[in-house]
């Protein structure tokens, strides 16, 4: 009588599905052994749940103004107080999680594949292709990310879509570097030679055999980068170049609260706590994932 657990941990899996699920199970088990990683995972899942079911968590409408309730301190009615238009800050923070999640997901979806492909092509072909692609990558890498994003938003115009594009432009080069390093170690292994000798095209080798092996280090890196992406997006919102009012974006909310920071501290402070908690969550989760998926790059404990 084999239990599900035995099936998952079987040393000689009989199907690809079983092998994959077994690997996932092992990763899951070792993550559970790291309390900070568990905390990080809980925070990230919390963010997702909050974003998806925002109307259930919010106690008020995020946009409904109530001028008789301006700048009220936190209370039983308004858990985080109200802002200068009498809007409930807690409800705005809850709906703001949707914006944060969308930004983070879109940047990852835009930047990671570009970096992955550039890095894999560069590493696999080598020679001049490698030199040119990595030269471009290094130029982007040598620029400060925030300044690069700011300059691109300035060119594209303020707004949340442009902020996402600008952050993606500033983020992809580090993924290209990682994918290239991974590809270089994979390229000369025997199974790649075997596939090549069987007549697989270069495209097939890269897409079907190299890219899948780069994904785990990529997942680690993207998770670790999430905090930085959230902070950059919030920074753009704070300066006024990211999400525009009345969108309840956390950085923009802090910017609005700036004028009241000396007397009505909660307006600017509350959304900041949301940013800190979510960023810390991604950091914890990323650290944990790195230890599990990528032990050789793990922080020396």
């Amino acid at each position, binding site marked *: 009588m084999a239990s599900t657990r035995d099936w998952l941990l079987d040393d000689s899996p009989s199907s690809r599905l079983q092998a994959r699920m077994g690997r996932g199970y092992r990763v899951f088990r070792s993550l559970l052994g790291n309390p900070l990683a568990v905390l990080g995972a809980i925070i990230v899942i919390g963010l997702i749940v909050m974003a998806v079911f925002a109307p259930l968590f919010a106690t008020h409408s995020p946009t409904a103004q109530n001028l008789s309730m301006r700048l009220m301190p936190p209370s039983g009615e308004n858990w985080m107080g109200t802002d200068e238009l009498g809007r409930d800050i807690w409800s705005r923070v809850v709906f703001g999680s949707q914006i944060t999640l969308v930004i983070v997901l879109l940047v990852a979806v835009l930047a990671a594949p570009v970096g992955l492909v550039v890095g894999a092509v560069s590493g696999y072909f080598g020679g001049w292709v490698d030199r040119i692609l990595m030269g471009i990558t290094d*130029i982007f890498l040598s620029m*400060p990310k925030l*300044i690069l994003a700011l300059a691109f938003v300035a060119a594209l115009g303020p707004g949340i879509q442009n902020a996402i594009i600008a952050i993606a432009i500033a983020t992809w080069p580090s993924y290209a570097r990682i994918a290239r390093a991974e590809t270089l170690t994979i390229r000369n292994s025997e199974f790649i030679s075997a596939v090549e000798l069987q007549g697989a095209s270069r495209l097939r080798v890269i897409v079907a055999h190299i890219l899948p092996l780069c994904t785990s280090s990529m997942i680690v890196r993207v998770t670790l980068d999430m905090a930085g992406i959230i*902070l950059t997006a919030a920074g753009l919102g704070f300066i006024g170049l990211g999400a525009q009012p009345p969108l309840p974006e956390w950085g923009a909310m*802090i910017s609005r609260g*700036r004028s009241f920071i000396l007397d009505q501290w909660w307006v600017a402070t509350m959304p*900041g706590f949301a940013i800190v908690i979510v960023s810390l969550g991604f950091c914890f989760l990323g650290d944990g994932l790195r230890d599990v998926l990528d032990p050789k790059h793990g922080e020396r*404990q």
Partner: protein
Amino acid sequence: MAFEPDSAAEVVIEEETKGRGGRPHGFWKFLLAVGGFVLTIALTFLGLLAITFFIGRVIPIDPVLAVVGDRAPRAVYEAARVQMGLDQPLPIQFIRYIGSVLSGDLGMSVSTGKPVAQDLARVFPATLEMATLGIIIGVVLGVPMGVFAAARQGKLADQIIRVVGLLGYSVPAFWLGLVGLAVFYARLKWVGGPGRIDIFYDGLVQPVTGLLLIDSLIAGDFEIFMNAVWHLILPASVLGFFSLAYIARMTRSFMLDQLAQEYVTTARVKGVPERLVIWRHAFRPILVPLITVVALSYAGLLEGSVMIETVFSWPGIGNYLTTALLNADMNAVLGATLVIGAVFIAINKISDVLYRVLDPRAR
């Protein structure tokens, strides 16, 4: 906010330095290495120029319209276009752009009405002053914290320092600045408010270096010096926190590496006191990589100052950049981007060279 330079970039430095094992065998080889290095720097700067040029081209604002206004007759418009060189093909425009940047011409700022280069020279010292005090705070606190954490690995102190390090990656700089203002300025009144100096003292000191702390000392005005310190201490501490987080994290990691070495075990077995083992045996070898970390962190602070300066109304390059961004003053935006990028690249490359010169294994 993570002012940590990309770790991928560090890997590159390591790969390169490792690749250059062994001393160069002759003068020519040395010359070749220097030549290659200069070429890399030149190409990186060229890349930076290409990026700012590209951004300047894709903007939806028509630079000619900005000059002549939208009621100008066709002929005036065309004349202005030709005069600005915008009728030329892009490569020629790019070469002209490089030429004007190299001669120090970054165009006129629409909002201040002065040349951008002149504006930048005026605001840069304020940023330099803040970032320098920030890095001093980061090193003075961060290095001992990292060493301490490594010495007490896994204990409570280590855990606390680790969380402080991670906070450096997850706290928005502008938010920490605002909270700092609310607590230390508004409530406790321990520090001065936004700006470099009280309005009362503004313009009383003859600018010599542009650094208020030094200028006020040159003028011998201690009152103004104290007032400047009073204003500088909070923004510099906020910046310092972020470099502290990064430096402590890296120091801890380097120290753990050294403490695991066999010669450290030997020293311990021979009965060398633990304090000496840590500070003399283990700490000395990490000084060289630490210098690189500090340099990279200094470059990162330049980037971080953009947010901090906005919060503290600090009249530095970051504030200049954000003001220009909001006024769609493209010449000023690109000029500031160019200068920040160039200083960033320069510090990175200098730290790279320092590492090679100081570490015998990297030569």
